[in-house]
């Protein structure tokens, strides 16, 4: 819907943009030439946007195999003088850390912008890591937008800054900003006509000499001083200070909005001074100092760690040693989880001693929670992973007897929901590719396990671990739940898809070919929609000595239905005369399309939800489920 808006070269036009779209637009306005990413919530829509419009605005975009490679692609273009951007979710930066550190130490040529989308409160992540620490550790300036408009402007500015000081620059967003939409006023699109040319003097040991290029810590520190100087007068930082306020507030990035709304709601606009902070590293110490030396008390509001707060605590020693500092460190704000208007408003009203009257709904909410279900996360109707896990469970039961005789090490993807009932057949998952690695340690000490990994994740980080298993003679079993897309983050393609992010046809790199080339002892591919065959394949895998792999290949049901629109699959039906109400389909398989008619004590299939996979038909012991099986 927004592709038209995003590519419109119509300065001043007001359009509705998501935070992530605004970041992409900012890069386009800045004349970016190369963009690379690996999908991950809450960052995915940045890449999705580039993917949709790359051809139209003549930039290159790719979904790289992982974040480190994406970073390197962007860095390569930067060394040749072109502007490039790399975006990822917070934990993606852990993967890219190796090159991140060197890109800042050695410097860049064309502006290089890193977008880190952090996820306070773990809406869709295993942790709420604050990547401003990683930026600081690696001497990378951090810009933190508050709104989609800021996100666009700051991204464009990040390219300028990056070129000016020859450092990569991080634009740090959080879920609430990335997924927020608002009216954004567009700027001019500046098309770069720069010719790519490798910067020999800047990067070539052969030309510039080893000594000049290799030891650059001093130069790096000097660059950071320059950036700090620039941030002192950055127009995106805004200080509201009359001079007679007792309380000051620093609001960094998105959380500044909570400060503005809370102050307005409490009617204390004239009682507090505040700083909207858009550059959290390096901190503009004099600007912050002006606020510090004026007020008696200071509240620091930020997502999610006390990153600015800690620095302010140090600064107070110089600017105002008697300052009382409040924030996440002293417990005035919670130490973990994202903030909101209420939390920030309560903190401000406590500090000012202002009474806020708010109707409490706690009793009513508790009553509602008591009767309402949670609506637990579950695999979609028709999801091939459900069938894969079902067949695997059957095979384990048959070969090993006890389901607890193996640890199922899952990985990052939709199939992480395999732990949920009624399938309940997944034990651990950590980070991309870890399933194959940790299974080897377990196997080495005599604990049986199965590594359960998705196709996208296999390409991202599974391959080195698989080679390790073969090389070091680990006796492990690997299931690749291959649904042919990176489904969880929005159906992005990957190296086996046969098409690139820009929709160009390309070679399909098959997982079974990689496995065979790695020396895996036993590899087979099955369709999990054929439960019997899948179970037989898993049985053979479990009985193999050495490294054995089954690739359960069937396209994501949601993607399949998406691509057949406006047509719909033919739903299966339950024959009420044959259904005896045993509920086996629901209690052992649990597809969301199966529902229960309490009055009749019979199962029924929701025709709007049924994806037509026909797996439930194979499970029903009464043969009460009918339909035409899809091929």
């Amino acid at each position, binding site marked *: *819907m927004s592709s038209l808006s995003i590519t419109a070269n119509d300065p001043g036009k*007001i*359009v*509705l943009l998501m935070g992530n779209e605004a970041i992409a637009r900012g890069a386009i306005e800045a004349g970016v030439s190369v963009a690379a990413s690996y999908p991950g*919530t809450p960052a995915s829509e940045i890449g999705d946007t580039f993917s949709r419009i790359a051809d139209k605005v003549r930039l290159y975009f790719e979904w790289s195999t992982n974040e480190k490679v994406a970073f390197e692609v962007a860095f390569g273009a930067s060394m040749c003088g072109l502007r490039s951007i790399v975006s990822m979710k917070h934990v993606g930066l852990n993967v890219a850390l190796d090159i991140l550190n060197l890109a800042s130490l050695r410097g860049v040529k064309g502006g290089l912008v890193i977008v880190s989308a952090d996820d306070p409160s773990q*809406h*869709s992540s295993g942790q709420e890591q604050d990547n401003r620490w990683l930026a600081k550790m690696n001497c990378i300036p951090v810009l933190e937008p*508050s*709104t989609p408009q800021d996100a666009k402007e700051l991204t464009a500015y990040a390219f300028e800054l990056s070129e000016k000081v020859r450092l990569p620059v991080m634009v740090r967003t959080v879920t*609430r*900003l990335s*997924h*927020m*939409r*608002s*009216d954004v006023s567009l700027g001019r699109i500046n098309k770069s006509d720069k010719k790519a040319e490798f910067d020999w003097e800047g990067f070539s040991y052969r030309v510039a000499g080893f000594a000049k290029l290799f030891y650059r810590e001093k130069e790096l520190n000097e660059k950071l001083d320059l950036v700090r100087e620039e941030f002192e007068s950055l127009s995106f930082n805004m200080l509201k200070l009359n001079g007679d306020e007792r309380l000051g507030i620093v609001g960094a990035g998105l959380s*500044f*909005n*909570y400060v*503005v*709304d809370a102050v307005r*709601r409490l009617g204390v606009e004239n009682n507090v001074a505040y700083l909207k902070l858009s550059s959290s590293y390096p901190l503009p110490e004099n600007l912050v100092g002006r606020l510090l030396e004026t007020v008696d008390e200071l509240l620091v509001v930020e997502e999610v760690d006390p990153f600015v707060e800690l620095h302010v605590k140090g600064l107070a020693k110089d600017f105002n040693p008697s300052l009382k500092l409040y924030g996440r460190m002293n417990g005035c704000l919670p130490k973990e989880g994202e903030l*909101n*208007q*209420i939390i920030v408003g309560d903190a401000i009203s406590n500090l000012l001693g202002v009474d806020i009257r*708010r*109707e409490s*709904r706690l009793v*009513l*909410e508790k*009553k*509602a929670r008591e*009767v*309402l*279900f*949670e*609506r*637990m*996360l*579950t695999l*979609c*109707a028709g999801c091939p992973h459900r069938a894969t896990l079902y067949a695997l469970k059957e095979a384990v039961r048959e070969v090993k007897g006890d389901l607890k005789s193996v640890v199922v090490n899952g990985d990052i993807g*939709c199939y992480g929901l395999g732990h*949920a*009932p*009624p399938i309940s057949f997944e034990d651990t998952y950590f980070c991309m590719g870890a399933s194959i690695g940790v299974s080897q340690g377990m196997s080495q000490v005599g604990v049986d396990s199965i590594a359960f990994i998705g196709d996208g994740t296999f390409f991202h980080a599974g391959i080195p671990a698989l080679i390790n298993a073969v090389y070091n003679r680990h006796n492990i079993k690997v299931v690749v739940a291959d649904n042919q897309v990176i*489904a*969880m983050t929005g159906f992005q393609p990957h190296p086996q898809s046969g098409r690139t992010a820009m929709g160009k046809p390309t070679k399909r790199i098959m997982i079974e070919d990689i496995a065979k080339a790695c020396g895996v002892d036993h590899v087979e591919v099955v369709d999990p929609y054929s439960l019997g065959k899948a179970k037989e394949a898993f049985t053979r895998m479990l009985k193999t000595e050495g490294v054995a792999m089954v690739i359960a290949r069937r396209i994501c049901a*949601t993607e399949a239905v998406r691509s057949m629109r*406006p047509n719909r699959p033919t739903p299966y039906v339950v024959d009420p005369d044959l259904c005896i109400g045993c*509920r086996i389909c*629901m*209690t052992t398989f*649990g597809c*969301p399309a*199966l*529902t*229960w008619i309490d009055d009749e004590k019979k199962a029924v299939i929701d025709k*709007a939800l049924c994806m037509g996979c026909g797996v439930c038909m194979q499970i029903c012991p009464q043969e009460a489920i009918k339909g035409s099986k899809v091929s």
Partner: protein
Amino acid sequence: MDPLRIVIAGVGGQGTLLASRLIAEAAIKAGYPVKIGETYGMAQRGGPVMSHITIGEASSPQICPGDADVLLGFEEAESVRRGVTYLKRNGLALVNTRRMPPAEVVSGMVKYPNRDILIGLLSEVTNRIISFDATALAEEAGDPIATNMVMLGALCASGVLPFPEKVIINVLKWNLPQRYHSTNLKAFKLGQTAVQRQIDNNNR
């Protein structure tokens, strides 16, 4: 004007996001600043989803508990879950009575609460509840997926929006593929009529 705050509650896959975007696009066309905050976590399909829309001056994407003028509930239980928290006292609740039982209900672990209990909870916040089977109306229009268009029509008929119907209809036509227009417009009209009828009955 004071900002208009709308909370949309539903289940992943129901098209709540599209509905919120259409409302926001219409607000922009009518010259208002607008913010949408989304909460959807890891749900592709079937998880609880919520959109907050603020039309008018505001900074945060999220609406404060107890501040929503309107609850647009796409699913019965989700309407109650969000309504008891976000709807302001005597705010307007437009509720689709169609149920989407979650996995724990389907697999028999818990029961879907009955309607009287659910609506009773919502009634502790407001007596302005308009409930109807929006999905049945979407089916009548030709596709249950058009439930979101029925709900948009309902919102429009409730008279809370600060812009006329034609703004939102134009946005709908402009943003959605032409092959869906007739179903969508039909669904929109059915939602509009359903709510108009209830308002007329209440006024009688």
